[in-house]
């Protein structure tokens, strides 16, 4: 049986907590989670496209160029052009901005609000928890897309309203998962100790409980990003999301799939591939993150 010495020399301590070079860590994680790494690459490429869209393509994503309408993929237009003569690759690259902006905004806002509400619900318990959870039940009774559509029909279309529409149904989903973890943490003595020291509820929730539910929280965020991208694309496809001429993958799919599926299939295929890859990437990345942060789930 190993015995840990009661005190460590300063040098020994530094040696123990010394971090490995990032490249070594990355290679190690890639070997351990190859699918997750693949997902991570997709996510990184998307972020890269979104950030450097202006320099990655010479074309304007919104400018009509009818003389080049419905041009098949060629050396000049790698993925062809749409019915307005706009370069599809350019619109895909700029569309990643819309997807990521909506995806991350919805995921972060929804997850953070859900985190705070979930931990608070677990911490206070009693009647507050009971009523709050029933409210969450009402929201969760509706499928995500139905809730989002209902909200868009009230507030109207547009990027801002799409973010609101997708964020609201995320909140109860995150709150419910976080609450279950927080319920266990609430019973741990250090929370009682914090109470005994007279700390405020806010301090206990935010500084002592919340950091200990970060694992499920991060996993939820990664899952939410993919879901939000898919929901945004779905709403745009249904004509309820962002509107032309804003480049958005669902909108591109709508314009192309309906009228040009036979005569110009590239108009619909590329946005479809982009949506699939993005969601696939975030899901793989999220799964790997879950495995890494919560090793107990690896065998499940």
């Amino acid at each position, binding site marked *: 049986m190993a015995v840990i010495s009661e005190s460590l020399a300063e040098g020994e301590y530094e040696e123990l907590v010394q971090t490995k070079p990032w490249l070594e860590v990355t290679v190690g994680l890639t070997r351990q989670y190859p699918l997750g790494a693949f997902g991570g690459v997709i996510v990184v490429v998307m972020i890269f496209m979104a950030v450097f869209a202006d320099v990655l393509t010479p074309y304007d994503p919104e400018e009509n160029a009818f003389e080049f*309408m419905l041009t098949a993929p060629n050396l000049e237009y790698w993925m062809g052009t749409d019915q307005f003569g706009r370069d599809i690759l350019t619109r895909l690259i700029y569309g990643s901005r819309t997807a990521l902006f909506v995806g991350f905004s919805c995921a972060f806002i929804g997850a953070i609000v859900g985190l705070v509400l979930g931990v608070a619900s677990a911490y206070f318990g009693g009647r507050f928890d009971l009523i709050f959870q029933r409210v969450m039940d009402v929201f969760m009774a509706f499928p995500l897309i139905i809730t989002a559509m209902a909200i868009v029909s009230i507030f109207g*279309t547009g990027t801002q309203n799409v973010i609101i529409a997708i964020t609201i149904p995320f909140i109860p989903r995150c709150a419910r998962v976080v609450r279950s973890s927080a319920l266990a943490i609430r019973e741990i003595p250090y929370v009682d100790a914090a109470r005994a020291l007279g700390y405020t509820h806010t301090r206990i929730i935010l500084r002592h409980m919340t950091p200990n539910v970060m694992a499920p929280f991060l996993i939820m965020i990664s899952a939410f990003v993919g879901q939000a991208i898919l929901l945004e694309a779905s709403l745009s496809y249904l*004509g309820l999301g962002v509107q*032309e001429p804003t480049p958005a993958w669902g909108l591109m799919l709508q314009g192309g799939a309906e*009228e040009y599926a*036979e005569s110009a299939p590239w108009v619909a295929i590329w946005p479809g591939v982009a949506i699939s890859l993005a969601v696939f990437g975030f899901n793989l990345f999220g799964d790997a993150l879950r495995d890494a942060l919560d090793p107990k789930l690896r065998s499940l």
Partner: protein
Amino acid sequence: MRNVYSKLALSLALGAGFALGAVGTAGPAHAIKKGGILNFVVGSKIPSYDLHRETTFGVIHPIRPFYSLLIRINPDNPSSPTDFICDLCEGAVPKGTDGGKTFTFKIRKGVLFHNGEKLTAADIVATYKKIIFPPEGVPSARKAFFKMVDSVTAPDDFTVVFKLKFPSGSFIPAVATPFNIVVSKQDLDKHGYNWHKKNINGTGAFSFVQHQPGSFVEGKRYDRYHHAGKPYLDGFKAIAAPKMAIRLQAIRGDRAAIEFRGFPPKARDDLVKALGDKITVQESDWNCALFYTPNQGRKPFNDVRVKKALSLAVDRWGGAKYLSRIAIVKTVGGVVFPKHPLAATKAELLKLTGYATDMKANRAQAKKLLAEAGASGLKIDFSNRGVDQPYKVVGTWLVGQWKKIGLEVKQRVQPSGPFYATLRKSKDFDISIDFNCQSVINPIADVTKFLGSAGNNYGSYEDQTLEDIYDKLLRAAKESDQRVLMREFETRALSDQVHMGITLWWYKINPHRSYVKGWKIAPSHYLNQSLDQIWLDK
């Protein structure tokens, strides 16, 4: 590649051949087969059943078959702007007496409403009073068509007399407008003027069975229909399908036989290619123009410099060339249906603001005007209708055109119901897509859309000069005088004040299952929709 083009050309030739064949053989000489249900698709929702207040095909197509008109366009010759026949009246369509100021209609006897009530002249009078002299707060979209009407009376149970203030050639075409469905006086007296928004009781070829909102409207043959032997169909089902792809696939899969509005050229080509002789194509110029309407109730859209800049930015001639390949629009025109004698020639059009072909100069002038008006880089809330063809396509094109003069346009697309609510009630828009889709080609009536006082004008402006020009136009007897006044009207509306901007006129393409017989394309998707002529060759 040449092979592909050859096949496409062959398919189109076949389609056109079959179309001509169908037109040539659809007459009564062929043995008409009775029975069957006609399934057709409709690409818009139903804001209300009241055709007197509505302007959309979304209501005409499913609801018109339940009603009759006083007179209607000849279903065997629907392209003619002058060939009218009696529907609820008897004999020939009356000619004006008293110097063209009195029109006396003899009403058919024995016509019954679907609820069993007898139709009399009082019903016709009540109908036209609702259309021409609606009570305060009751909308009537075509009220302005009847500016020449002084009174409508019924001297007896089967005579209706229209007295005009002055003779007008636009009166009879106005009466034949298919939105002028005849309703029961008793229904109006008993239930009020809003009852017909949600209820149906007509004398049409079909009686109402059910409406599942968002899904379908169903009608069945009305056995006591006043045209003997008709209708030929047992019934119809108008299936709601807002997405064009669904409508197209419905025809392709034979879940629907026809769509009466029109498909873009690509859809026609795909259908002909896939179905060959099972598809018949009918095509026609279309008495429909797509506009944008600035909301002059809002600043700076009441500034003529801003309105001129908006028009100058739009490349109509370039749009005609390319948009006609992807949308149901084709022709550059002014306020009058382009092939009509009263329409502007190309030389006349080129003089109007925004119609010159030098787009570089146009846009430079537009930017200058915007700067003068202090509206450079103006942010615009552009309201559009959530119907694919041609609204969303042309709307997206317009956004691109305005962007070229530095405007920042945000397009807000809404389904038909909320779109109309925005356009008509809340008027919560800077610029809205708008349209002037008329039925019978009747330019003097059709241009009333440009009058600020018209029930279907949503620009929130008053222009007495334009009203005065129209008044003279309405009273002009000679075509040459009408033409001169029409140019004056057009210049005022589109060039000097730029109350609205016309983008392009539409082009109607109706590919349908070849077994649908008896229906002939008209220059409007509102015309020839009683369905009593249609039969199925199955």
